[in-house]
Structures are given as C-alpha cells and as structure tokens.
C-alpha cells in the first residue's frame, strides 16, 4: 500500500445483501469507500451496523454479493491476508488481570510474528509508536483490567494501529464513554485518518459528533443504505428522515439534533 492513489477505492461493497436466516437487514448495497476517509456508520439499534463491519472483515458471510478489499474479493483472501489489510476493534470489553497493555498492543503484531509470537526490535518499536500515537505510552506496563473505559479504548485502538493496516474498522468505539472521552476518541480517529492516511470506518450512535467530524457517513435506515459526504446527505434530506416518527428533529442550520417539544 505504498503509493496512495486517492481515486482508488479501498473497500468496495458489490451488491451486498446482509442478514440472517429469518431476516434480511439490507439488500443489494453498492458502496466504494475511498482511501484515507473518516466515515461513521449511523443507524438505529438492530439496523445492521455491526453486521456490515463484520462482513467487511469476513467475520460473517453475506447472504449474497461481495466485498472487495484493494480490488480483491474477501472470499479469496485468507484470514491472514485480511489481517494485513484490515484491523478491527470490537465492542468486547477486555479486562483480563495481569494482561499488560504492552502485550495487548503487541498482539496487533500477530500477523507478522513467528510461530510463538516473539516480538523483534521492529515489532517492539511499532508497539511503542502505536502507544505513543494514542497517548498511552506511560501505560505500557499497566494491566488492562486497571484502566478506565476511555484508556482501554485507546489501548484497543493502539492495538489496531500496531497491526499496521491501511484500514481500521471499529464497532461503537465511543459507546460507554463520557462526552469528553467520546470527543477525544473521535478526534483521535479523525487525526489518524487524515494524518496517517488510514481508512477508518466506525459505527456510532453519536450523530452530533459524527456530523461534526466525519468526512463521509453511511446511514442505514429501514433497509435503505445511503453513503455520501456529510453535506450531501444533509442536502438530500437523509439525516432528517432518520428521525421521522420520533420526538427528535434535525436542525439543519446548526447541524444538530434537537427535541421537537420546547
């Protein structure tokens, strides 16, 4: 991934249909994600945000259609091939006693280390760099179960950075965080997308933050999936439509969500 061809899409969803045996989440979705963008995946609970992220990283199979990473179908890629392209931050809470922050981030090097997972000089440098990027360098020797939620989320992002992939997917990275932490983690991700030229896609319920910080949004609503720049989605009225039949409305002028009743 040395040369960055801006026009090239890193992730292509082709006629993607996702769902489970008894229920289709959405049908025939076609999206091309561009290199280096910071994208939020928005939608209400159960609309398929997690499922979409998981299908991109091949944790689940689509009902039909395909996902292409750098032009290659994930169907033909091994888990190891995918691990070199995409790192994933799940909602799982990692609170194992005596598991050091350094070791968690070191696990991000797993696709590149030998049979026993030994970290060489280069791997260790990468781990320290990744910890530094998220501001957690001083926590290297701490045990993960002793961290606050915000600190733990930084460590998990740092682990994804250590995996050194052009794409990072995150499943609700700001859930369970307080408002300052939500902003800090979102700003951190945006900075990584723009400065390190990573393609970052995350699912979220924080519409206000996403509208403020993201380059592009994916809106999933009642089986419809819309992808576009934040401005274009606002212009086309897609944001507004998210809140029909609710107590909320979208204030276009201030780009915020508000309560209908005074």
């Amino acid at each position: 991934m040395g040369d960055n061809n801006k026009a090239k899409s890193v992730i292509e969803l082709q006629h993607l249909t996702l769902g489970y045996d008894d229920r289709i989440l959405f049908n025939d979705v076609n999206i091309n994600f561009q290199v280096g963008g910071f994208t939020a995946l928005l939608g209400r609970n159960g609309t398929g945000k997690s499922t979409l992220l998981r299908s991109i990283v091949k944790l689940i199979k689509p009902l039909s259609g395909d996902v292409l990473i750098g032009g290659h179908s994930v169907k033909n890629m091994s888990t190891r091939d995918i691990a070199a392209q995409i790192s994933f931050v799940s909602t799982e809470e990692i609170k194992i006693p005596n598991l050091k922050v350094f070791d968690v981030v070191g696990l991000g090097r797993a696709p590149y280390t030998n049979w026993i997972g030994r970290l060489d000089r280069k791997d260790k440098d990468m781990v320290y760099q990744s910890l530094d990027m998220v501001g957690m360098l001083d926590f290297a020797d701490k045990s993960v179960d002793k961290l606050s939620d915000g600190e733990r989320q930084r460590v998990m992002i740092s682990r994804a950075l250590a995996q050194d992939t052009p794409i990072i997917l995150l499943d609700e990275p700001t859930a369970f965080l307080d408002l300052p932490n939500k902003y800090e983690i979102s700003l951190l991700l945006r900075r990584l997308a723009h400065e390190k030229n990573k393609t970052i896609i995350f699912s979220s319920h924080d519409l206000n933050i996403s509208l403020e910080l993201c380059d592009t949004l994916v809106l999933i609503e009642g089986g419809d999936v819309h992808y576009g720049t934040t401005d274009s989605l606002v212009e086309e009225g897609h944001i507004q439509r998210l809140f029909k039949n609710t107590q909320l409305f979208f204030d276009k002028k201030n780009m915020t969500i508000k309560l209908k009743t005074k």
Partner: protein
Amino acid sequence: MKKKYHKLYFIIIILAVVTLFGCDIIFGSVTLSLSQVWSALFSADSDEAIQTIIWRFRVPKAIVAILAGAALSASGLQMQTLFRNPLAGPYVLGISSGASLGVSMLILGLPLLRISFESDILRNIGVVGAAWFGSAAILAAIIAVSTRIKDIMAILILGMMFGSASGAIVEILQYLSPEGALKSFVVWSMGSLGGVTTTQLAILVPVLLAGLVISILLIKPLNTLLLGENYARSMGVNINVVRRLIFVSTTLLAGTITAFCGPIGFIGIAVPHMARMFFMEADHKTLMPASMLLGAAVMLLCDLIAQLPGSEMTVPINSITALIGIPIVILVIIKNKKIF
C-alpha cells in the same frame, strides 16, 4: 522490562521438579537411602531387590507423575483460554468423566457381554481408545454448545451435567457387573500413578509428548484468543484449525491420563492459576511452560503425600489432588471475581 525475575522463577520451579522427583524415588513403603538409590542407578552390582523397586516401580511412577501433571495443566490452561473461563478444566468440564465413561464401558461393559481381551497390549489400546472416544465426545458437545451459548456459567453447569450423566451410566454398569470386573474398575477409578505397566508406558509417553508439543505450538493462537474469537480471527488466526488442535491435544492429554491413572481432578484447573499468581502474567509464552512445570511439581508432591512416607499405606492420588487443588480454586474465585 517486566520479565526480570522470570528466569529465576523458572530455575526455581525446575529445581523443585528435580528435587521432588528424587524424593518420590526415595520415599515409599520402603524408604531408601540416597546411597542405595545412587548405586542402583549407576552401578551394576547392587542389591537386586532395590534395583527392582527403583526401576520397575518408582522411576516409572515418578515419570508418569511428571507427565500427568504437565498434561492435565496444559489442557486446563487451553480450556480456560478457549472458553474464556477461569473455572474451566478437563475435570470440571466433564472431559475426564467422559473418559471414565469410555473406560467403564470397556472394563465393565465388555465382561457383561462376555467379551474379553486376548492380549495385554490389545486391552491397553482398547482402554486408551475408549477414554479418547469418551472425552472427545464430551468435549465436542461442550464446544458445539459454547458456539451458541456465550454464558460461561452455563457452559460450566453443562460440563457438570455431562459429568453427572456419565457418572449415572457408570453406576448402572457397576451395579450390573460381576465382582472381579467391579474391583478392577474401582481400583482404576481411585486413581493411581503406580499402576502403569511398561506396555502402558510405551503408549503413554509418545501420546502425551505429542499432546504437549501441540500445546506449545498453540501458544501464539491462545494469546490472541485472550481477546476473544473475533479479535483472534481479525488478527489472522484460523480459528477452526486452532479449535481442532485444542480439541485434539486436550483429548490426547486428559483422555490418556484418565485411561491409565484414573480420573485425577483439580490439577488442570488449579495449576494454571498457580502459574498466573507466580508470574503475574497472562502471556502463554510464560504460562504454558510454567503450567507444565508447576503441574509436574505439584503432581510429584501429591504422589509423595499419597505414599504417606513412613507408613505401609498409600491413599488414592485423586483425593490428594482434590485437597490441594480445591483451596487454590476457592482462592481464585474469592480474589479475582473477574478473570476474563
């Protein structure tokens, strides 16, 4: 950085294993002196009775103790990481019971059908095969359920249910069995490291070594599994292959030990926690070898205690492992309410 004392700890544990190995050979119903052991080991013209005691009985038994301790601990560590459950182990999850069921069907069931084995080797292979089959069946059931039910307590309770069900079938077989078969089964079920014959040793050693080698090869995937299966897969681990390897190695390790030494409980669950307490780490690069070595040391110690040195009697080894292992498990439950 953090691993300052690791080498020292490993040296201490290895010394403990060597010392306990020596003690296990010296002490027994007849206590030998160091010089007697020395001459029996290294000179040809020594007392033949002592030669026999040492080479026929005590050395094989001590070797079995080392292998059994290492095997049960390695499989316990794998179970705990795979199921992300600090209370998992081959005994608790019913895998040993599955092996017992297999063995009981062979020892008790075949005589009922008036089938008997012609040769010793055939009989032993049959016992091991039955134990593998039984433990593999229970393990397969637990793995199948665990992909659907994520609740760790549910899986433990299920293991206990499988264990109780096996126990019930074993009791029926016992009730129906003639005295001779019953006696040999009861002796087997009390657990013994000393009953292993040379023929059995020839099966036991290579099989357990294979299981232990697989355990060591699993160190890296087990580390990624600390973060859960989704993380492990997203880091390039082929989870299906890994799950199968854990399956094979646990069946080989726990099944074989149960076949030849009887159901030995609480080593598999307690020893990995001892390793964690000792090294204050979660990395399997440390925990796997540490669990194997500590398991060997603990098993030798249990065997030594079971001899009741100075007396003519011995007590069943699985009573001692339970009495030593259970306090550690209780400590773990109280101290770390949350491990995964």
